[in-house]
């Protein structure tokens, strides 16, 4: 069993195998993710009941919660890739970070925007310096740093190395910022879906929310694969395996 895992791990790192597989997978994943997002948004925006306290304003939860959660999950996955790159020098990890960074940045921005739109009616201000909002902003800055980092190095290898180091610095720094900012009492109400305790929103609202979360994760998976394919083709276009592969499909 361990041997199977090991050579799957090595296959994961090889560009030709990934290029072949992603060619087939992308259309399927793309179709399902768009479908899911459309269904969940319609269901969430028009059919789910209005909230007792916040009226219809809470419906933005169907964009805010998935965006914020996906932006953090992307960053933590990138830091795993960064670790893999620094230890095993796997080029695929560098491709992964470079492709996922813009997507993460986009969703962090969506999270901030939707949070502000949601915050305005509930807290009465567009922006409030509160622990979670500040650390999301810091996360956004780190994404920008990673995107900016790609172009400052001549050689691809040193760019990936620098980017991996920054990603790990970010992973260490995020909790520190959250803790140091936490010293002000936080206005942000506790997470509505707490994995451990029972979630504090009713089930009719929950199902479209879970659907939209699934939809957005699939969408990230779809765009991630797309970006990685583009990145691989730009890095490997003068290799014969790439010419052979791209000529026949």
């Amino acid at each position, binding site marked *: 069993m361990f041997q199977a895992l090991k050579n799957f791990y090595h296959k994961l790192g090889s560009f030709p195998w990934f290029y072949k597989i992603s060619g087939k997978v992308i259309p399927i994943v793309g179709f399902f993710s768009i479908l899911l997002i459309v269904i969940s948004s319609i269901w969430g925006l028009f059919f789910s009941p209005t909230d007792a306290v916040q009226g219809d304003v809470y419906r933005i939860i169907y964009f805010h919660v998935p965006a914020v959660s996906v932006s953090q999950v992307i960053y933590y996955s990138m830091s795993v890739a960064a670790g893999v790159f620094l230890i095993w020098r796997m080029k695929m990890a560098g491709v992964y970070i470079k492709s996922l960074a813009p997507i993460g940045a986009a969703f962090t921005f969506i999270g901030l925007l939707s949070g502000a739109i949601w915050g305005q009616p509930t807290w009465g201000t567009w922006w409030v310096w509160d622990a979670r909002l500040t650390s999301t902003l810091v996360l956004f800055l780190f994404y920008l740093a990673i995107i900016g980092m790609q172009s400052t190095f001549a050689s691809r290898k040193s760019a990936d190395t620098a980017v991996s180091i920054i990603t790990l*610095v970010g992973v260490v720094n995020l909790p520190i910022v959250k803790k140091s*900012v936490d010293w002000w009492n936080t206005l942000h109400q506790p997470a509505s879906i707490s994995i451990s305790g029972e979630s504090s929103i009713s089930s009719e609202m929950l199902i479209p929310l879970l659907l939209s979360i699934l939809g957005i994760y699939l969408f990230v998976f779809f765009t991630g694969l797309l970006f990685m394919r583009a990145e691989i083709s730009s890095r490997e276009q003068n290799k014969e395996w790439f010419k052979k592969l791209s000529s026949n499909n």
Partner: protein
Amino acid sequence: MIYLIKILKKEFLIYSRKSSSFISPVVFFLISISLYPIGISNDPDILKNLAPGLIWITVLLSTLISFQNIFSEDYEDGSIELLLASRQNLSLIVLVKIFVNWIFSCLPIIILSVSSVFLLYFPQEGLKPLIISLLIGTPTICLFGALAGALSLGKNSITGPALMLPLSLPVLILGTQAINYSLNGINFSSNILLLTAILVFLLPIILFASVGALKLHFN
């Protein structure tokens, strides 16, 4: 060791010859100090409790502007290559460079911040904690500046500021809180100790990271 003193003299000469390195922190401080009352309000008690934060932000912005010229000028005229070829211990040389950059970008502002007692109606007794927290906090910010400068060598990409701000956030919070604590009677020594702990802890790590980042440009 002698070559370190030689490099220290060389850096001092270079910085002092560049007239901008004298004037820019002073002018920068005066501009920001005069903008705050105009921008926010000239009501004394508002300015009074904003003063610590405003001064810290001024120092942070001053380092943000000047972190480029720690390495980028040496990169353009090839001295970094010579340093790499000279087999000397690069981290000590980088430390000297950061120290000189701190002298020319942060120290003037710390000295000038004494004037905030008149310009920003900052209470007299708050001055001691202000100076102490600035003296301990700004070197850490200069360290982050050096790392940002080493990474974005030559090309002024978004990376520098985007990296420096999140890293120096905790230092900013601790620094301003230390001053506020001291103003309303709370013992602020724990903040100062934490600030020193951060500086001491980060000094070697950021130093070697900057040297590594420099070498990445010449792998």
